[in-house]
């Protein structure tokens, strides 16, 4: 500890910098004119550059929403692609301002890695992919099956837990990457492939005949994926938090990318809509933004449902159901805190 303090003092002396640079992320972002957003290097549907080099995806749209709310332009995002290994370092060292990288919120990450998690934007969970011809309808019938599983992941531990709880004998086939799993599964080296449900959907679209494979109904783990910012700047954390909440609330209130402009023009009958769209209440000022912050975010990327359907929903090759990610009133668990 002593050495680190000395080193820090020396560094501060040499570079004349202060740790205060961490505190006001909002000012930093405004000064730089762009939000540095940590995303995945490539994950189908969530974040990947398209053929013209422009990032698209579910996580990417949340980055753009934050940029639109803060800077007024969804394109003022500097994407910082990060791997699973260096994502938190990139955020904590200040190279990234905010992280949307299909990251599971856990206690150790929150407390030990010193992250502040934003509201969950995708409820994922571990699922199973199997051939339709196997005639298996439930994961409890998997006795004796060989299971492809990525080594060193939480999914490996989840699987062991699940199988032990249900007293099922199985034969693990360790693989390193999703690609390897796909090859092994397609070549018949394993009967079942298990990983996060969204990953399974992506894997399935890569198979030669996707309709010959089914995803079993069981989801055996909780993987709440959420954005995050580093500890120490509550105002910035609030901005991230309320942008996500605003997008979810917008869906609940029927505000879409198309109608947001006209609804925001003047105060309507619904005070919830008015507060969200800044025609009353002065909510934006509480997080250091102006009143039209949510209007800009929604007109940039649409509400939560629109983002979901655009990148990972039924009409995309991934074809994910809303499931848990439906609004609470539609049978899901998406329940955003009210803006008031």
């Amino acid at each position: 500890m002593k050495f680190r303090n000395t080193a820090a003092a020396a560094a501060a002396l040499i570079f004349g910098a202060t740790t205060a640079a961490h505190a006001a992320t909002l000012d930093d972002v405004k000064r730089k004119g762009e939000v540095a957003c940590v995303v995945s290097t490539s994950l189908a549907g969530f974040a990947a550059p398209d053929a013209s080099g422009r990032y698209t995806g579910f996580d990417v749209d949340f980055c753009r929403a934050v940029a639109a709310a803060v800077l007024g332009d969804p394109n003022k995002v500097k994407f910082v692609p990060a791997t699973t290994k260096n994502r938190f370092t990139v955020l904590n060292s200040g190279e990234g301002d905010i992280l949307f990288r299909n990251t599971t919120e856990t206690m150790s990450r929150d407390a030990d890695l010193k992250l502040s998690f934003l509201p969950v934007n995708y409820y994922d969970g571990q699922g199973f992919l199997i051939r339709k011809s196997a005639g298996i309808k439930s994961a409890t019938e998997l006795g004796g099956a060989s299971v492809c599983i990525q080594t060193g992941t939480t999914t490996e531990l989840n699987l062991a837990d699940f199988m032990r709880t249900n007293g099922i004998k199985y034969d693990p086939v360790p693989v390193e990457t999703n690609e390897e799993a796909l090859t092994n599964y397609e070549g018949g080296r394993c009967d079942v492939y298990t990983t996060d449900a969204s990953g399974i959907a992506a894997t399935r679209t890569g198979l030669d005949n996707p309709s010959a494979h089914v995803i079993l109904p069981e989801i055996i783990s909780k993987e709440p994926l959420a954005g995050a910012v580093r500890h120490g700047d509550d105002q910035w954390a609030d901005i991230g938090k309320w942008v996500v909440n605003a997008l979810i609330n917008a869906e609940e209130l029927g505000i879409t990318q198309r109608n947001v402009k006209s609804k925001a023009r003047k105060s309507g009958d619904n005070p919830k809509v008015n507060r969200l769209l800044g025609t009353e209440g002065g909510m934006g000022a509480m997080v250091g933004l102006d009143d039209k912050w949510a209007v800009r975010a929604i007109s940039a990327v649409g509400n939560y449902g629109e983002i979901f359907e655009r990148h990972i929903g039924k009409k995309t090759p991934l074809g994910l159901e809303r499931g848990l990610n439906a609004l609470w009133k539609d049978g899901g668990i998406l329940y955003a805190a009210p803006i008031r």
Partner: protein
Amino acid sequence: MSAPQYAPGKHPDLPAPSTLAGPLAWVRANLLSSPSNITLTLLSLWFLWSVIPGALNWFFFDAVYSGENRAACRAAGEGACWAFIGEYLKLFTYGFYPEESRWRVNLAFVLMWLALVPILFDRVPHRKYGLYYAAAFPFIAGWLLVGGLGLAPVTTDKFGGIMLTLVVGVTGIAFSLPIGILLALGRSSKLTIIRVFCVGFIEFIRGVPLITLLFVASTMLSYFLPPGTNFDLLLRVLIMVTLFASGYMAEVIRGGLQAIPSGQTEAADALGLKYWQAMRLIVLPQALKISIPGIVNTFIGLYKDTTLVIIIGLYDPLGIGRAALANTSWIGLSTEVYIFVAIFFFVSCFAMSRYSLYLEDKLETGHKR
């Protein structure tokens, strides 16, 4: 039947008997000389027969060159879906470099070849000026790619694809050779401080995997530096890659230096040459010549190691390929991507390797065994 008579010394040269020269003899000598050779030949023929038609079909005849997405590709043909590579070709080449400034990348690429010619071949007219230009090239290219001084600045996080590989590879190759030579000389220096420093540096570099160094460059440095200091990520990578390659280079060149008999240095001393003169004129030309295979080996290794930058979030061609595979309309075409990247690396590395053979032949002075 009598043979024609010739005066002594006037007998014309006759072609060799067909059993000793010509294609038939070659086949007999090389393919069918013994029962085991015959078996191997037949096995190879069978192998080629069973592999080549399928491969050609997949690569060319059944391949699909245009299409909207994977489904369209699969509907149009059984073979490779090159339409996918075609759509991502620009990303593979330029990474995220802004469209309107890509002429700068092209120009830098052309200038690179102009700089390479005087380095690689010694019968170029005005070679001296060419070499001056080649020495200035890294700075010209740096200015062209990064911008400033009249050009629109482009941040290095926009670099990617083949261009990134070339930037990292060429910089590493260009700077690791001189640094490696200095380290190798320093290692055999009589001055203790220099020797200890060089040995320590080389042993440290060789004891640590490149991936660790890159990781330190990308993440740990950020902790050591005060928040807010922005030390360009690509620059860190370039420094780490160069240092790494120079550590290995130093050992390759040390091998060459040790193969030079001490009589050579003693002769140089006897002629009254100073240390640097002796090194420059006598020892290094010989030592470098016999180190060529090792040096090129290190170059090729370095060039291929550039793919490791993906772990710190930079997109080399392989990274671009993986990102392309995450596009939901093309997902599942990994074979095409990996073959394309493999072809790119094979062509570059094979060219380097052939050049080194050419150089060895050119510098051959009768030491070859």
